[in-house]
């Protein structure tokens, strides 16, 4: 005990550090040193693997913004909390450990730094509260670990599997048991100490777990208790140090990689895809090999904890397709682990005589020898596999609807969608090997600037009925109504365009369309990997829009809305872009349109992915429905950020679907809440939901309508026409 410090006692409560373990200190330092070296070597190897492969990408800019992300998702665990059971489970372990580590740091600071100078701060009331908090958070960790074990091995939710096949590894059990071991032995040590010392230190009742556990040792001789204490102390120490040493070699690595990944999250608008810059001179397009990912895209896979949040709402996975975002990321990780050692060795060999390079080369040798040793004689490196087709199968690649559920809900901020689009780009642009129906779609977009392949001269025909002018006729308008292909060519979509145009006219908004000068927005080409076609279409639109001096644009299709708003700025197309639900909600709020005619029914709003998750437009559509007189609204179980895709995004609209249909699954969710109208804000969703209703034979009792159609009806400005009775007897004279 250092001199000059008041003795521990009533009024100066405290705890003697290294009680019954005075002589262990030297060994403790020695073993801690060994554990730290093992940890450092593992981390260094991993660092080399992270930096050995992948194209460059800047993810360290704008540090303030990134620190906020780290705070939000890494420290406060906002994303993790969103699922109650796993959120609480992980929160207990995370915050528990966080506090325990700070507690240990306090102890160590006092013992090693302040006490030699005669200062002890863990004393008195502060100590009492401190020891209570430590016990409380230790208890949290214990509960969290038990919840984790229960969930992983007893409840076994689907998301911890791939199609029912559990993907637990021995590592999962080892990690949980290590934590359990640390906490249980920690409490036992405390209990044994209290068992021996409680008469001198009655305040230890504040260490309420240890205090109560100490009762279990009633009757144990102090001598035996001390021996047990010493033994448990060492067990506790070895498990704790083992835990530290094990971090870089296990899933515990996520303690480092996941917060790092939060820090390095893209700061670009949600879903924006990095354009291919130079078609003329680039040698390869898209991602065909692991090395063609950026380093960050590879690093992503090392931040994955296999939690399965992505899989839980993936429309492809939940309808029995091959794709699971979790499996995709894990497969990339496995592939990277196979390929990285050779890349690291090559980099180290080329790195010259720096100390780190030398250390790297020694470790390369050690790791290679280790492999020889483990594989017996004749170690063979893993057989070369192709990224596309073998690591990621083609079904997985094309199953994705780009719905963004995985990215929005990933608690490690992994960016799945750009990886998928990158690989699609390779298949389309390099191999020209993709679904024939999608080839037809692209040809249609090339020849007639719309995916359906309807003659491009018919693009503005819908507008004749409502007398909407083109900008060629009158460019002096406030808004350009970018109609898009569905609104121009699809019979159902045309009705939405007409309804919306009538609303704008009734509200006295000045607007025009591009007519036959309008091109397809290119979204399906971009997300289906045909970046070349997408850029051709985007540039055609931007050129026309700029020529007319367009400033504000309204789109009724969220795909066009998103492309114009987020992706066109990449090509110097900077416009203020609105979705029609934003405009309508605003017109209602300002009283420029009046919804006076009751529209009876039970409405459920289906969030379009490109409106909701991509653009955070969740409330305007709901406000519109709330303003419709007579409308009762219900929410489907999956809504807002956890909404379920209709199945048409990511160019899936144009492709054959295998297995259960995503739109049927979504329509079923609407049927389950007894809705009679599925309200949408997207023409793709409109088609998919209408088809889903038919597939469930509910077309007599249910309908899918765009919000513009509902609003136009509720405005009551137009006599509803009775269906034309073609065979009605001629009116009698």
């Amino acid at each position, binding site marked *: 005990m250092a001199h000059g410090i008041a003795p521990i006692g009533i009024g100066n409560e405290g705890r003697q550090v290294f009680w019954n373990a005075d002589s262990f200190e030297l060994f403790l330092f020695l073993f801690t040193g060994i554990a730290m070296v093992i940890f450092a070597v593992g981390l260094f190897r991993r660092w080399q693997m992270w930096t050995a492969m992948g194209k460059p990408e800047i993810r360290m800019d704008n540090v303030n913004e990134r620190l906020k992300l780290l705070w939000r998702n890494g420290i406060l665990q906002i994303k993790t909390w969103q699922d109650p059971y796993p959120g609480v489970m992980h929160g207990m372990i995370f915050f528990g450990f966080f506090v325990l580590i700070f507690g240990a740091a306090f102890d160590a600071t006092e013992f090693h730094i302040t006490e030699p100078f005669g200062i002890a701060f863990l004393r008195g009331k502060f100590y009492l509260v401190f020891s209570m908090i430590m016990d409380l958070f230790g208890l949290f960790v214990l509960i969290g670990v038990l919840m984790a074990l229960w969930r992983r091995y007893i409840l076994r939710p689907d998301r911890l599997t791939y199609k029912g096949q559990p993907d637990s590894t021995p590592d999962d059990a080892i990690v949980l048991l290590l934590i359990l071991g640390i906490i249980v032995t920690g409490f036992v040590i405390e209990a044994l100490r209290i068992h021996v010392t409680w008469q001198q230190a009655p305040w230890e009742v504040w260490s309420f777990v240890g205090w109560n556990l100490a009762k279990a040792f009633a009757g144990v001789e102090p001598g035996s208790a001390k021996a047990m204490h010493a033994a448990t102390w060492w067990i506790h120490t070895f498990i704790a140090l083992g835990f530290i040493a094990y971090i870089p070699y296990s899933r515990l690595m996520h303690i480092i990689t996941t917060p790092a990944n939060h820090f390095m999250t893209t700061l670009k608008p949600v879903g924006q895809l990095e354009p291919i810059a130079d078609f003329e001179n680039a*040698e390869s397009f898209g991602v065909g090999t692991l090395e063609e990912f950026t380093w960050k895209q590879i690093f992503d896979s090392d931040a994955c904890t296999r939690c399965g949040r992505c899989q839980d709402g993936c429309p492809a996975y939940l309808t029995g397709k091959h794709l699971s975002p979790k499996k995709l990321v894990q497969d990339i990780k496995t592939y990277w682990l196979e390929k990285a050692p050779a890349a690291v060795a090559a980099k180290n060999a080329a790195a010259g005589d720096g100390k780190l390079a030398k250390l790297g080369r020694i470790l390369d040798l050690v790791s290679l020898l280790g492999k020889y040793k483990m594989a017996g004689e004749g170690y063979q490196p893993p057989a070369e596999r192709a990224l596309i087709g073998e690591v990621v199968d083609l079904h997985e690649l094309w199953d994705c609807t780009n719905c963004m559920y995985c990215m929005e809900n990933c608690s490690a901020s992994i960016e799945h969608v750009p990886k998928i689009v990158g690989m699609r780009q390779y298949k389309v*642009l390099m191999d020209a090997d993709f679904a024939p129906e999608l080839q037809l779609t692209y040809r249609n977009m090339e020849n007639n600037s719309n995916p359906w392949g309807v003659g491009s001269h018919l693009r503005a025909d819908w507008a004749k009925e409502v007398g909407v002018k083109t900008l060629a006729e009158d460019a002096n308008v406030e808004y350009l109504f970018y109609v898009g292909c569905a609104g121009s060519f699809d019979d159902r979509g045309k009705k939405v365009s007409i309804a919306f145009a009538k609303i704008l006219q009734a509200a006295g908004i000045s607007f025009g369309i591009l007519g036959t000068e309008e091109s397809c927005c290119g979204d399906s080409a971009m997300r289906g990997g045909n970046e070349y076609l997408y850029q051709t279409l985007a540039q055609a639109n931007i050129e026309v829009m700029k020529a007319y001096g367009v400033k504000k644009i309204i789109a009724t299709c969220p795909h066009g809305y998103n492309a114009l708003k987020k992706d066109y700025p990449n090509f110097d197309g900077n416009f203020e872009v609105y979705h029609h639900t934003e405009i309508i909600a605003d017109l209602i709020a300002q009283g420029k349109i009046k919804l006076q005619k009751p529209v009876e029914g039970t409405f459920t709003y289906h969030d379009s992915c490109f409106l909701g998750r991509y653009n955070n437009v969740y409330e305007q559509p709901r406000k519109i429905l709330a303003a419709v007189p007579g409308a009762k609204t219900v929410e489907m179980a999956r809504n807002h950020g956890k909404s379920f895709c209709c199945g048409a995004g990511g160019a899936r609209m144009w492709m054959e679907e295998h297995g259960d249909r995503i739109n049927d699954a979504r329509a079923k969710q609407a049927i389950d809440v007894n809705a009679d109208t599925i309200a949408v804000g997207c023409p793709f969703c409109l088609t998919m939901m209408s088809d889903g209703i038919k597939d469930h034979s509910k077309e007599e009792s249910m309908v899918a309508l765009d919000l513009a159609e509902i609003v136009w009806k509720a405005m009551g400005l137009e006599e509803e026409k009775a269906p034309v009775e*073609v065979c009605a007897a001629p009116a009698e004279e």
Partner: protein
Amino acid sequence: MNIIACVKQVPDTEAQIKVKADGSGIEEGGIKWVMNPYDEFGVEEALKLKEKAGGDVTIVSIGPARAMETIRTALAMGAEKGVHIDDPALNAADAYTTAAALAAAIKGLPYDIIFCGQRAIDDDSAQVGAILAEILGVPQVTFVTKLEIDGTKVKAVRPIEGAQLVIETSLPCVITATKGLNEPRYASLPGIMKAKKKPVEAKNAAALGVSTDAKSKVAKMIPPPARPPGKILCADDTPEGKAAELAKLLREEAKVI
């Protein structure tokens, strides 16, 4: 193997065709021009043959400057080089003159097999491939849906009404392609970029030494009359009643049965 594929640039199938007021032709403004779809089957088959047997594919096309886009499209799909015959006297020629010009261009090239589409979708004449073979004095198999080549032996399948003919001949020959022969490929982006630099030789009637005197001339183009509005059968609401009414109308009004 030296493979030739003849292609024609035609208006897109969805394009709005307007006949000029004087009936001398069609209004070309606003038309999207594409490769004749049947020629695309020919190009695809040529490329598949090259990939199997080696050699190279030459694209031959007649048309104004814009026809170069179609040649480049074929080059982007994987052909090696092109011949562009651009001569106002040939660009809208009849089937015989077209075939004669193609033959003159092809005679100057080594060739083992020539692919054409079975017809072009603009004038629908379906004669050029056949005349070309006659002028070159080589065998021809038209409307081919399946092709096998082994050495110089050629085995082609041609559908006829209710059956299929299996025709055997030998190289060199002319094959005219129709739907079912293959699925034309989508050009890769490197293919599109490389196509810009592939050689295309320019020719005209004088250089080819062909007569531009047409054997037939289009006197006048007349748009089809506007279609009369449809008719809804209302006399009887039962299927039997509707069928009886339909039969009566087809016989008495339309006079088709």
